[in-house]
């Protein structure tokens, strides 16, 4: 008998007004895993993450975090249950300083010593942020903003980290650095659900992967197997 997965999503349906964005998605993330979620633009990847965090509550289906039902839990309470998200397009607070952005990430935590350790860890992972701790978020470069967004999520000390296209719009060297950091975070104990258009990189990093198409999971497999999957190759890996 295996322990229940860290995150379990069962038959999720999410709508924008009357347009279905998710049509029966089921997926799991187990303790310690990195799971990649790939799919074309508009497939519903971001919607899935937003449904898990309560920003777009699902109309049907269930979400469990460590066996606890997340349906109906307001978005601001989800982070207390150990789920942090790096939203699409980073969405850092452009008018708050780097340091204040990180403080916001730890908003729900009260153990000041532990929070201080998280600060130290973030500045260790991203020395660039330490240099710019008083700089206003909106004036950071794109790569720095992405570091800040990830750092901010780390500040919540999550058990599950949701990342929505962290490589978007970044130079290849930066992408590599970001992906290394993600692996690092995973080694330190956080499970990861990684949404990516950059399927190759994501599958290289992940243990398992799902392919989402028009609101439904069409393929689910080990990451290595997915990389070899013919359909996946043609559609998402640029055919090489």
């Amino acid at each position: 008998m295996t322990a229940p997965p860290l995150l379990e999503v069962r038959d999720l349906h999410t709508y924008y007004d009357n347009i279905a964005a998710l049509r029966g998605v089921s997926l799991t993330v187990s303790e310690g895993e990195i799971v990649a979620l790939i799919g074309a633009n508009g497939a519903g990847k971001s919607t899935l993450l937003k449904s898990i965090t309560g920003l777009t509550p699902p109309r049907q289906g269930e979400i469990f975090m460590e066996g606890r039902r997340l349906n109906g839990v307001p978005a601001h309470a989800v982070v207390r249950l150990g789920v942090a998200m790096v939203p699409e397009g980073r969405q850092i607070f452009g008018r708050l300083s780097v340091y204040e952005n990180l403080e916001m990430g730890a908003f729900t935590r009260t153990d000041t010593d532990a929070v201080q350790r998280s600060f130290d860890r973030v500045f260790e992972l991203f020395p660039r942020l330490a240099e710019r701790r008083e700089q206003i978020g909106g004036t950071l470069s794109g790569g720095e903003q992405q570091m800040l967004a990830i750092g901010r999520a780390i500040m919540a000390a999550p058990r599950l980290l949701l990342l929505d296209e962290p490589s978007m719009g970044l130079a290849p060297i930066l992408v590599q650095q970001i992906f290394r950091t993600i692996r690092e975070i995973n080694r330190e104990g956080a499970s990861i659900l990684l949404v990516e258009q950059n399927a190759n990189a994501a599958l290289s990093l992940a243990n398992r992967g799902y392919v989402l198409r028009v609101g439904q999971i069409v393929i689910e497999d080990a990451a290595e197997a997915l990389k070899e999957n013919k359909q996946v190759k043609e559609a998402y890996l640029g055919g090489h």
Partner: protein
Amino acid sequence: MATTSTTVGRSAAFSKRAFLTILGVLIGAVLAFRLGQTIYDQVWGPEVWIRNLINGLALGAVYALIALGYTLVYGILFMINFAHGEVLMLGAMAGFFVLDASINSGFLDYNTLLTIVIVFIAGMSVAVVVGVLLERIAYRPLRGAPRLVPLISAIGASIFLQNAALQAFGANVKIYPTPQITGLSGGQRFGDVFVANTSIMIMVLAIITMVALVLLVNRSRFGKAMRAVAEDKPTAQLMGIDVNRIILLTFALGSLLAGMAGVMLGFHNRQVTHMVGFMPGLKAFTAAVLGGIGNVPGAMLGGFFLGLAESLGPTAFQIPSAYKDVIAFGLLVLILIFRPTGLMGERLSRERA
């Protein structure tokens, strides 16, 4: 999305610093010239100028306190809380009733300072309750509706509150018995210039409050959460911030300031009616826009600027004081033409160089 307001600042006709400098120098020059001229022509002496300067500062302090309420709410919800003036009025009313009761019961004679403190607390508490109810009943159900909808709701709430006060408490003028209160009744004489004690109280209290507010917004956990919510509500939620609660607290904070301003006006003008919220509310909103709505230091600057303009304008140009409202709105139009986002630009955040 997040960068829109910074571009506003940049696309303005003048940069902020240049504009403020030019404006300051210009106003300073004109005032200095008229100061010399009126004294030389013996229209009025320097004591008139100083008296009006102090009146302007006191009036400006009140405007600034009220304007802060508009700016905080606007900064976080992008809505004009049209009923803010009525919150002030109800605060002033509550202050009056408590003051009246303490006079009748002899408590005022027993401890004057404590009475004044209690009057302020009563006014501010009632204002907070009204502001919070307003948010829960009239605004929260409209979150996410098109912009005009909450505005109309606010107008409705304003009409309701004003007329409810009229119905409940009557149309008669309620006299704040300031002259009976030792310490508030008289004034201080500095040479030729007489300054009412209430003006001094207003300025001291307002400045302390504003310093505290700036610290709260910039330094406290609540202040940072408020700025985060103002900027991006969904992301703030992801951080674990309860957006509804922050919005409610923001209303409470703004209403607290309005209640304080209401009691101040009560003591200073020595009377309240159900109408006292309207004009100060309008002026303070003007002040908030002048300073750049959503901008905390801007609201303060705008308040003082407007207060001074209203009291020094007629002094400088010998305009009948009936036209002081014309000055206020005229200034607003002029400044918005050159700086479409107000003196300090719009944003609810910490000022940095």
